[in-house]
C-alpha cells in the first residue's frame, strides 16, 4: 500500500538568513511550514490542504530547553517526548508536564512539537491552557526582527494565529514559578490517549504569607473559538483567602466567560458542566500543593 501525497518540494534552511530568504522568496505561494508534521502531513494526505513548497525548520537549533534569567526557554521545535523526559520541566513546570503527557499518543509525542501545537491554534490545543496559566510569552521572529507577545494574544480564532506573513514562532518563554505559586492542568477527552479534548483547562495561584491570593490565572480550552483566560474569575479571587465556597463561586464566574458549542466530541451542556469541574479541581489541587509548601 502506497501513501500518495501530492507532489511538493521540501526545503530545509540551515540558518535564520536562509529561512527568511525562503519565506520572502515564496511570499504569496502555497507554503507549508514543517515542524513535527503530525498535523500537516495528515491534513495534506486528506486533501484538505495543497502546498507547493514545504519549509522544514528542523535545522535551525530551535530544539533546546534552557533556564535563563528566571525563565524556562523552550525552542518551538522541542517535541512533547523531549518535554516529558526533561528534568527542568519535570521539576519546575509540572502543569506543563501533565499537559504534554496528554497530547496524542506516545508516537505522536515523539514528533509533535510545542511550537506546532501552538501555531495550529485549534481551540482544543492541549499545551495552551497550561501555558496561559503559567504566563508564557512567545518570541516571534521575522526578517524585520523579533517581537514578544503574551500567549493568550496569539490565538485569533479556530486555526487562526497572530503570525504575520514571514513570521515564525521561535521560542516559548515561561517565567519560573516561585515558592508561593503553583499551577495544575486537567484534560477531559473521550478516552485517555489519541483524543482531542472535550474540555481542558489549567489554573495558577500565587499566595502571600497570609495565604491570600496575590496572582491568579485560569485558562480553559475547547469551550470558545480560542483557548481563553477566565479573567473575571481571576479578578474575583485576587485578595481572597481560598476555601471551597470561594472556589465554587470562581468556577461559576468562569462559566460566564466561555461559549462552548456542541460538536462530534461533546455537547455544549456537558462542556459547560466539565469546565466548572476543571476550574474547581485545578484550583483546589493548586491550593493544596501550595498550603503544603507554605506550612
Amino acid at each position, binding site marked *: *500500500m*502506497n*501513501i500518495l*501525497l*501530492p*507532489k*511538493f*518540494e*521540501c526545503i530545509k534552511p540551515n540558518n535564520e538568513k536562509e529561512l527568511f530568504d525562503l519565506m520572502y522568496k515564496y511570499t504569496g505561494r502555497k507554503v507549508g511550514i*514543517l515542524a513535527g*508534521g*503530525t498535523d500537516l*502531513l*495528515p491534513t495534506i*494526505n*486528506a486533501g484538505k490542504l495543497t502546498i507547493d513548497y*514545504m519549509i*522544514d525548520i*528542523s535545522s535551525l537549533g530551535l530544539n533546546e530547553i534552557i533556564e535563563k534569567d528566571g525563565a524556562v526557554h523552550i525552542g518551538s521545535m522541542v517535541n512533547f*517526548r523531549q518535554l516529558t*523526559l526533561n528534568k527542568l520541566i519535570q521539576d519546575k513546570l509540572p502543569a506543563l508536564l501533565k499537559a504534554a503527557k496528554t497530547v*496524542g*499518543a*506516545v*508516537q*505522536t509525542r*515523539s*514528533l509533535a512539537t510545542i511550537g506546532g501545537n501552538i501555531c495550529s491554534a485549534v481551540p482544543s490545543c492541549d499545551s495552551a491552557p497550561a501555558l496561559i496559566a503559567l504566563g508564557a510569552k512567545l518570541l516571534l521572529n521575522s526578517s524585520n526582527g523579533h517581537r514578544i507577545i503574551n500567549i493568550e494574544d496569539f490565538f485569533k480564532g479556530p486555526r487562526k494565529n497572530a503570525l504575520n506573513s514571514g513570521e515564525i514562532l521561535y521560542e516559548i518563554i515561561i517565567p519560573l514559578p516561585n515558592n508561593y505559586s503553583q499551577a495544575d492542568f486537567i484534560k477531559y477527552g473521550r478516552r*485517555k*490517549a*489519541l483524543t482531542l479534548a472535550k474540555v481542558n483547562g489549567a489554573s495558577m495561584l500565587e499566595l502571600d504569607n497570609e495565604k491570600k491570593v496575590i496572582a491568579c490565572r485560569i485558562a480553559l480550552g475547547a469551550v470558545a473559538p480560542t483557548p481563553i483566560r477566565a479573567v473575571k474569575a481571576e479578578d474575583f479571587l485576587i485578595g481572597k483567602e481560598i476555601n471551597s465556597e470561594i472556589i465554587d463561586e470562581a468556577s461559576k464566574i468562569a462559566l460566564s466567560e466561555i461559549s462552548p458549542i456542541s460538536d462530534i466530541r461533546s455537547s455544549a451542556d456537558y462542556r459547560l458542566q466539565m469546565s466548572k469541574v476543571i476550574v474547581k479541581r485545578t484550583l483546589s489541587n493548586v491550593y493544596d500543593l501550595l498550603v503544603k509548601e507554605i506550612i
Partner: protein
Amino acid sequence: MGRKMVLNVNEIDYSLEIEDNEILLDTIREKIGLKGTKYGCGTGECGACTVLIDGAPVNSCIYLAIRAEGKKIITVEGLKNGETLHPLQQSFIDNAAVQCGYCAPGMLMSAKALLDVNPNPTEKEIREGIDGNICRCSGYVKIVKAIDEAAKKMANTDEGSENNR
C-alpha cells in the same frame, strides 16, 4: 526525480533515491522490502506502522522519508539478535499475545521504546506505553502481560541485557 541519500535501517545502510513527498513507511516496505512494518490507518492514529527513529517510537506513515537521513531507524525485523528472538518477541509468542497479528509489530516497537527508558514499568505504565497502538482484536490483556513478563525476564537475565539493544 528523487534525492540520493543513505538511510540506516536496522544498522544497515541503504543507498536510495527518495522523493520529497515520500512517506517513510513506503520506503521501508516497498524500496527496502521489509514488510514487517504494517500500514494501518495512514493518519498516525493506530500505531501499526511504528518504528524507532533514534530510539523514539514514531508512526512511519506520517513521517517524510527524507527526514530520516542520518538517523538510526529500527523496524521489527531489527529486534532479534542473530537468530535469537528479542525477549519481547519471545514473550508475545509464549503468552499468545497475538490474535490476527496485524498490530503486533507496532506493539513490539512501542514496548521496546518503553522498556528502553523504563525497564521496570508498572501495569499502568505499560498501558500508557502502548496508548498509541490499537489492537482491533482487543487482545490487550495478553499484550500487557507479555510486555510485563519480558521486562521481568530482561531484568533478571544476562541474555535479556544483551538483547536489549
